[in-house]
């Protein structure tokens, strides 16, 4: 492609963006002479250049558009929505031709006579009807079929109907043509039908960018469209090739490094004649660096240029009234970042138009102005730029998102109900969750916000949402100013330094030694107690080598440890490092292909002293720490609502604290323990591979808590005695420490059998033992309820896994057969197979669904006992009400109710 043509393409593309926006402005105010003049001048320039370069198709389309604009300018015609639409269509056609021209270097074949005809007729003052907006706007409609061609001279005349079309009506032929274009690749169709452009423009680049954002940005650089500037400052700018700027930047970086080296040398000599000139050199270099960095900066407004047109088209297509308000266009950020957020922003704006804002009728009904407002705002905050996209629409539908998240398996039902509304809203950023009830051409295909999130996270940004039902939603995008320079924390481990991007560092904690924070170990997993939360820890050295560090010998000898508390995708975790050096502004250099497979690092950088260090990738560290991305319960920033909700659901539980097979404390709920005994180990008998003791006239098996823990054979052995259908089993422990009453909040669930999880009890991380597991081990062979009486079958509906695990062994021990499920629907499913004697249902989380149990025929009238942790709960229609912690009344109530039922 020759230079002249390349220049023309760049320039024209810029002009067209301006024209797009000006036309939208003109539409709202047809009398705005200045805007009109501006549009006319630009279209005229395009036409003129096309003629000069020998591009007839472009020239004719531009000419027809210019003629119509001329009539507006002369006052012969007033710009209406339909005529403006026609001009916009001609602009679109020009864009299409330009796109082809850019690819092939020559004008594509095509027929514009219909469009030109429409423009000319409009210029002559005929009432025009812009072609139907949905589903395919006219500029890219395939040529009319031959039969229709005879009548297609007048787009408003419909041969099938035998009358002129009403405004907004679509001719049958046009519809058919649109369908044909949609169903298969019509060879007659225009090179880029609108659906394809839209899909390609919105989704395909996302895919590409996901794969390689940098490469994509480089491609865009080559287009040379970067130099776009606002119209008013045009005279004061010159166009510089991006490559030149890049070279300049590299050179300056090197200059800075050399200066640093010089400074180092001079600093070491006490009295040097170089000192003064070097100081000057240093200052000049710093200034030069700043200036060069500025050349990369562009106002964010350049990324917004296309948006007014997009909003206008969307409003027209959707039959909505939308105003776009933009603030902070002058906020500058790195052009590379700018390119990368263009598409996510476009997508979000479309989203807001499509399902953020309601249709005018609905807005009027809820007392709002018919015209919805989408507000874009950008501002600096620290080293970041915050972009807000807000609408005053209906807000996110919390119930539907929660429902969808549960159904798509993103979260368990129980977790979902414990979440605050905002936490639920964040699910819109999860993959495969589209709440749009119908898929429109604009959005709702379920690949929306998660792609946006992925793209924003790729450039080290974050996205969040705040929504109020009925009042609209606001999205907050926080992105770094530039990708080239990031602030990083330099840490040391295993005699090597690494950089951790500051963006993902939440805080630094000194652990060990005299520090108030202590690293504790649970079965080789290290945790840090930080403000009453347990923080999973991973050793930096483990991440680097990929092998668990052997801590058996050294123990916690290393007392000069630092924990870097990092956050990734709402999850907090700690990374243990040996030393913390400094924070530095580092220039990120991509990794060479030879080491790109090492996922631990996202790049490398050269420090001021000339040494190279690796930049740690927070995402891979999060992965190494076993923090999965999909779980959305952030430990630190729990919203007040969630706290309140959780408080309502929990209560204090009495726990027996003991030690067994190790120093770390373990615990079981006291309500499950029948007795605490100290038995003489000498009386223990070993038979059948088990340890037993004659206890109260029968044989009681004794099992250790830890399989590796030895049961004593002399002295006193503390035993926790559990009962099961008149049979007892003993759990051997090393020492019983205490009985505490505390709120039980199991923080981490263990995957070892016999352990429910870990909780903070008395300020210490404590393993909670699964009694059911040990009981089965001890009593496995005795467990034959058939001996006594026909087993009474109980279905336990409890969302909280802790209470489920706590109550089912209790009920089993009392001689019931228990089916413990987490949802009402699962309970009903159980009942289909076997009629329960009684149902125990939790009413704290969702009393409404619990009520369903009362009326469902599948339960065949089995009594439903309400289960609550709250003192104020009312039995209501339920057959009875028991408190979760009240073991004896629970059993007696169930016993009474189930007996009453078998008697009946």
């Amino acid at each position, binding site marked *: 492609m020759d230079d002249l043509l390349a220049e023309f393409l760049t320039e024209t593309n810029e002009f067209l963006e301006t024209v797009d926006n000006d036309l939208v402005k003109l539409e709202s105010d047809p009398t705005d002479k200045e805007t009109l003049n501006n549009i006319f001048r630009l279209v005229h320039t395009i036409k003129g250049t096309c003629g000069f370069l020998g591009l007839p198709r472009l020239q004719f389309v531009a000419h027809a558009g210019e003629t119509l604009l001329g009539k507006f300018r002369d006052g012969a015609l007033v710009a209406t929505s339909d005529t403006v639409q026609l001009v916009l269509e001609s602009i679109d056609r020009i864009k299409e031709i330009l796109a082809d021209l850019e690819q092939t270097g020559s004008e594509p074949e095509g027929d514009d006579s219909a469009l030109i005809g429409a423009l000319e007729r409009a210029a002559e003052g005929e009432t025009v009807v812009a072609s139907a907006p949905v589903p395919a706007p006219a500029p890219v409609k395939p040529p009319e079929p031959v039969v229709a061609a005879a009548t297609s001279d007048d787009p408003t005349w419909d041969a099938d109907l035998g009358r002129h079309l009403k405004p907004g009506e679509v001719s049958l032929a046009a519809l058919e043509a649109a369908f044909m274009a949609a169903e298969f690749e019509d060879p007659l169709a225009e090179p880029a039908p609108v659906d394809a452009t839209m899909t390609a423009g919105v989704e395909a680049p996302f895919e590409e960018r996901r794969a390689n954002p940098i490469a994509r940005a480089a491609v865009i650089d080559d287009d040379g469209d970067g130099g776009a500037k606002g119209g008013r400052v045009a005279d004061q700018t010159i166009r510089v090739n991006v490559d030149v700027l890049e070279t300049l930047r590299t050179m300056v970086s090197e200059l800075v490094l050399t200066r640093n080296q010089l400074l180092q040398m001079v600093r070491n000599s006490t009295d040097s004649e170089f000192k003064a000139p070097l100081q000057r050199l240093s200052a000049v270099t710093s200034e030069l660096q700043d200036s060069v960095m500025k050349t990369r900066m562009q106002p964010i407004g350049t990324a917004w240029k296309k948006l007014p047109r997009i909003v206008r088209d969307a409003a027209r297509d959707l039959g909505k009234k939308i105003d776009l308000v933009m603030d902070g266009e002058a906020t500058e950020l790195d052009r590379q970042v700018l390119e990368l957020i263009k598409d996510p922003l476009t997508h979000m704006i479309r989203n807001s138009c499509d399902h953020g804002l309601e249709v005018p009728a609905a807005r009027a009904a809820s007392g709002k102005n018919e015209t919805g407002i989408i507000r874009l705002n950008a501002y600096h905050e620290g080293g970041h730029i915050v972009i807000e996209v807000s609408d005053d629409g209906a807000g996110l539908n919390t119930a539907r998102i929660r429902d969808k998240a549960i159904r798509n398996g993103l979260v368990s039902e129980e977790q979902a109900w414990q979440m605050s509304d905002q936490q639920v809203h964040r699910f819109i950023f999860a993959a495969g969750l589209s709440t749009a009830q119908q898929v429109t051409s604009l959005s709702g295909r379920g690949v929306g916000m998660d792609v946006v999130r992925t793209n924003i996270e790729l450039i080290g940004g974050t996205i969040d949402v705040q929504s109020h039902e009925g009042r609209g939603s606001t999205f907050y995008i926080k992105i770094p100013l530039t990708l080239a320079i990031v602030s990083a924390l330099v840490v040391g481990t295993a005699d090597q330094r690494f950089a951790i991007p500051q963006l993902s560092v939440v805080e630094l904690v000194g652990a060990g030694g005299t520090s108030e924070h202590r690293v504790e170990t649970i079965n080789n997993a290290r945790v840090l107690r930080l403000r009453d939360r347990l923080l999973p820890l991973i050793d930096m050295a483990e991440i680097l*080598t990929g092998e668990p560090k052997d801590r058996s010998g050294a123990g916690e000898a290393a007392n000069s440890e630092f924990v870097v508390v990092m956050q990734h995708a709402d999850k907090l975790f700690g990374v243990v490092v040996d030393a913390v050096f400094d924070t530095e502004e580092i220039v990120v250099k991509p990794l060479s292909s030879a080491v790109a497979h*090492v996922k631990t690092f996202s790049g490398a950088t050269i420090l001021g002293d000339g040494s190279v260090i690796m930049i740690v990738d927070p995402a891979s560290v999060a992965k190494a720490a076993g923090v999965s991305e999909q779980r959305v319960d952030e430990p630190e920033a729990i919203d007040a609502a969630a706290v309140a909700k959780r408080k309502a659901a929990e209560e204090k539980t009495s726990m027996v604290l003991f030690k067994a097979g190790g120093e770390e404390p373990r615990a079981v709920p006291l309500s499950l323990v029948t007795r605490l005994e100290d038995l003489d180990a000498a009386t223990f008998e070993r038979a059948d591979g088990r340890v037993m003791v004659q206890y109260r006239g029968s044989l009681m098996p004794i099992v250790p808590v830890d399989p590796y823990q030895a049961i004593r054979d002399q002295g006193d052995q503390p035993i926790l005695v559990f009962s099961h259908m008149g049979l007892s089993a003993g759990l051997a422990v090393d020492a019983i420490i205490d009985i505490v009453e505390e709120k039980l909040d199991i923080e981490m669930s263990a995957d070892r059998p016999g352990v429910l999880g870990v909780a903070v009890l008395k300020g210490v991380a404590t393993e909670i033992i699964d009694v059911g597991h040990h009981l089965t081990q001890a009593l496995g062979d005795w467990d034959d309820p058939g001996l006594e009486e026909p087993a009474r079958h109980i279905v336990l509906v409890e969302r909280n896994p802790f209470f489920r695990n706590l109550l089912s062994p209790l009920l089993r021990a009392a001689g019931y057969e228990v089916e413990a499920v987490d949802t009402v629907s699962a309970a009903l499913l159980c009942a289909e197979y076997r009629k329960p004697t009684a149902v125990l249902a939790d009413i704290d989380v969702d009393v409404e669904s619990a009520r369903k149990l009362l009326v469902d025929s599948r339960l065949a009238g089995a009594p439903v006992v309400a289960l609550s942790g709250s003192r104020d709960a009312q039995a209501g229609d339920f057959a009875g009400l028991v408190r979760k912690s009240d073991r004896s009344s629970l059993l007696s109530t169930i016993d009474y109710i189930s007996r009453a039922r078998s008697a009946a």
Partner: protein
Amino acid sequence: MSAAALKAPQTSVLASADTREFVTLHIADQLFGVQVGDIHDVFALQQLTPVPGAGAEIAGILNLRGRIVTAIDARARLGLPKRPNGYAGMMAVGVERDGEAFGILVDAVGDVLRLEDSRFEPNPVNLDAMWQTVSKGIYRLDGSLLITLDIARILTPRNASAAPAEPVDH
């Protein structure tokens, strides 16, 4: 330049067109040669930052005049034993591929030799299979043999090349 081209019958051994210039490299006890045009520069290894998890052949990365260069351990690449005193004092041959800079770490860099094509021989059939892939052929020198290294192959990680990697006895 393929081995076949080098092997093509030559009429005059003395004509300068039939000679090639090689930089000689010492890796372990073996003499290697790289065509002068294939390399950018030669530098002494100063500071090296290891890349944990990158594999034995990647010695690390280093800063060469503001550019980050990936250092390839030629000994590891060729399956030769490690140097007892680590990477200290090694020389590096700077090469470029696809716009990325690499440094091949060798024990020493020798002279530039102009070698006649007539001294060239293809790889002997009993040469270790992995060496076959990185060697373009052998030059018979007085008193020693020079193995011509294929830079592109050296930069391709060993597990990616077709030849099985076997330990070599020397």
